[in-house]
């Protein structure tokens, strides 16, 4: 499985709008901090984390809506220069996206059919006579009835709107489809159909997915590999099964234990108040039950075997100065995952 997307040390910082003085701008906020990951061909990479962890930021970087502050993004080996229009166009030709908010991502003045047709026009490569066929094929797949086509987004329910976003993204086949919470607004039965469809389409169209959701049940069901984000920092990456059955990072452990399932009865008590990231070192250390002094510094990436990487001192045997040998296998693909101390302003 070759790598379709390689993201290295990606940092995206936003400057706060609140100014501290006439000339001093406010502190900047790192939505993504030194994130490195790869998405293989025909792979579904699941990205999870709570609200505000930077999941959507990563999605937007991949379609060129946000520019990285630092770090590189390579698509099929080609490094994307976010300043070049050509590169952005290349990215958009190959990467489709389904947004989280179906209300704001659809043009309210266009009919459903026009919304989907726009995607076909933008692709430029599809002859006009094929439009109808493609539209009817895709709408059927995502569960949009024909009578919705002449309607406008405001006349539709949230679930229907999201299905239209999905149809728009899939109407022109892409190499990578970024799915940013694609099913969180859908009914379970429709969600199940969409998930089935996504799985089927992926194998048929040779596509990779970056599947972003906070719903662990869904991500478990769709993704091969899983990355867990905590306030802009990737804390654990690995095989979905491994992470779900034997999570290593304390944050992942807590996240997995909070998942609601049909069988489990009784809620997990959330004693912690809202997670607040630590300004330095391991971001999770403030709420982490296992935190100790060393967590003040940024934990290194540790390879636990089979591509299971965790960024936590608990699994560090580096007192023996052997931590160099433990640097993740993905390091071989590029500059590695360097451990640089970072500070939030």
């Amino acid at each position, binding site marked *: 499985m070759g790598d379709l997307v390689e993201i290295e040390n990606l940092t995206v910082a936003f400057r706060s709008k609140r100014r501290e003085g006439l000339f001093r701008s406010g502190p900047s906020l790192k939505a993504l901090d030194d994130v490195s990951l790869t998405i293989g061909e025909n792979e579904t990479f699941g990205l999870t984390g709570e*609200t505000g962890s930077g999941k959507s930021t990563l999605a937007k970087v991949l379609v060129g809506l946000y520019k990285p502050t630092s770090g590189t993004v390579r698509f099929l080996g080609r490094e994307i220069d976010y300043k070049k229009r050509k590169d952005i166009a290349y990215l958009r030709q190959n990467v489709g996206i389904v947004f989280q908010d179906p209300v704001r991502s659809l043009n309210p003045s266009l009919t459903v059919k026009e919304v989907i047709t726009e995607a076909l026009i933008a692709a430029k490569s599809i002859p006009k006579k094929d439009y109808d066929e493609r539209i009817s094929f895709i709408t059927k797949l995502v569960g949009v009835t024909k*009578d919705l086509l002449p309607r406008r987004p405001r006349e539709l329910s949230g679930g229907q709107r999201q299905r239209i976003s999905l149809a728009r993204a899939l109407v022109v086949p892409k190499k990578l489809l970024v799915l940013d919470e694609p099913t969180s607004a859908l009914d379970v039965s429709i969600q199940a159909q969409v998930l089935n469809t996504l799985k089927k389409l992926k194998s048929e169209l040779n596509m990779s997915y970056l599947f972003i959701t*906070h719903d662990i049940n869904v991500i478990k069901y769709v993704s091969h590999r899983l990355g867990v984000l905590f306030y802009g920092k990737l804390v654990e990456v690995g095989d979905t099964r491994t992470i779900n059955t034997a999570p290593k990072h304390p944050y992942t452990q807590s996240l997995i234990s*909070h998942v609601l399932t049909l069988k489990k009865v009784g809620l997990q*008590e959330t004693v912690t*108040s809202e997670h607040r990231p630590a300004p330095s070192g391991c971001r999770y250390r403030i709420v982490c039950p296992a*935190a100790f002094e060393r967590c003040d510094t940024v934990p290194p990436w540790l390879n636990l075997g089979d591509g299971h990487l965790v960024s936590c001192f608990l699994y560090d045997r580096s007192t023996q100065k052997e931590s160099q040998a433990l640097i993740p296998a993905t390091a071989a693909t590029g500059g590695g995952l360097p451990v640089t101390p970072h500070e939030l302003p």
Partner: protein
Amino acid sequence: MPADNPGETNARQALAPAVSAPPSYSPRPRKEGGEDIALEIKDLTIDFVSVDGRVRILNGVSLVAKKGEVVGIVGESGSGKTTLGMAILGLLDSPPARIVSGSVVFEGRDLLKLKPEEMEKIHGTGINMVFQEPLDSLNPVYTVETQIAESLKVQRKRQDPPVAQESEDETKKLITDLLRNLCIDKPEEVLERYPHELSGGMRQRVAISISTIEKPRLMISDEPTTGLDAYVQNRILGMFSAQRKAGETLLYITHDLTIASQICDRIYIMYAGRVMEAGETRGVLQEPLHPYTSTLVASVPQGFEDAPPLSVQLGEPPDLRNLPTGCKFNPRCPHAKDACKETEPKLEEIFADRYAACWRVDKALGRFS
């Protein structure tokens, strides 16, 4: 609890859970018969009338919620869940909505027959609703604090006998505590913001806090945790459980069965404006009688990537303007027989506290056959 001091050196201590006591999640209390009924809906039928014609949104829906009970209303979009919630509160605009028949009895009074002034008094402190879209229910030009304080004021004013209004400081403290209980970490900061400055999850929590501070006797929450992450979801659900303990009745509208299975005592499964199955939650979800319920249960993703496709009958959601004859679920039902296509089954009690509207459910056997 002292206020968070940002300059505090020992960060961990400062950040120790500011929440006084986590709400407990004890199993549902089983009550012995004779409890009073908080809400009873009988045979409610609502049409939406437009130039295109008349669409029946709700068709003979009956529902009972006992005091202190959490009743789930589960169904796909378009099944009439939200309309039902709005109808209880009398929030449906007429036109297009037209109530054809039925009654909504809350504390002995039929809400559908109340005058607008009387209804206004029930809104907020009697029955309250949390909407799915929090941005629509918050006022964009007031800060969060002003909006929550306003609700508190209303609550105090309507108490019988009236309770004195809190001073500004007390109000602020009450509100901060409430927000903290909802997993909001720096309530003082949030209070000064306007709704558009908050994230979706935060907004929803503010909307919920506005509703809870009014201490309604019946709370209707329409998909309050949809789109929120597991932590916040747990927290909000925990808070609802705590309120239930305080005697509040809750109607929980959701399409998420996993949530319904967590907090609901009884659930009503709705489809195309009808109740398809009703009963005690555990029973309904573990041994569904109606094929539609089974479909919903089978739709919940389980297992890993290599798991077989979810066993869902592909089929388009019902078009309310063009419903099939007979059972409305029959085009999507894997077990439909001829009888299902001819006449519509009625919701019948199959056995104690389990109802289903399906020809294939055998009353004598008490199960699907």
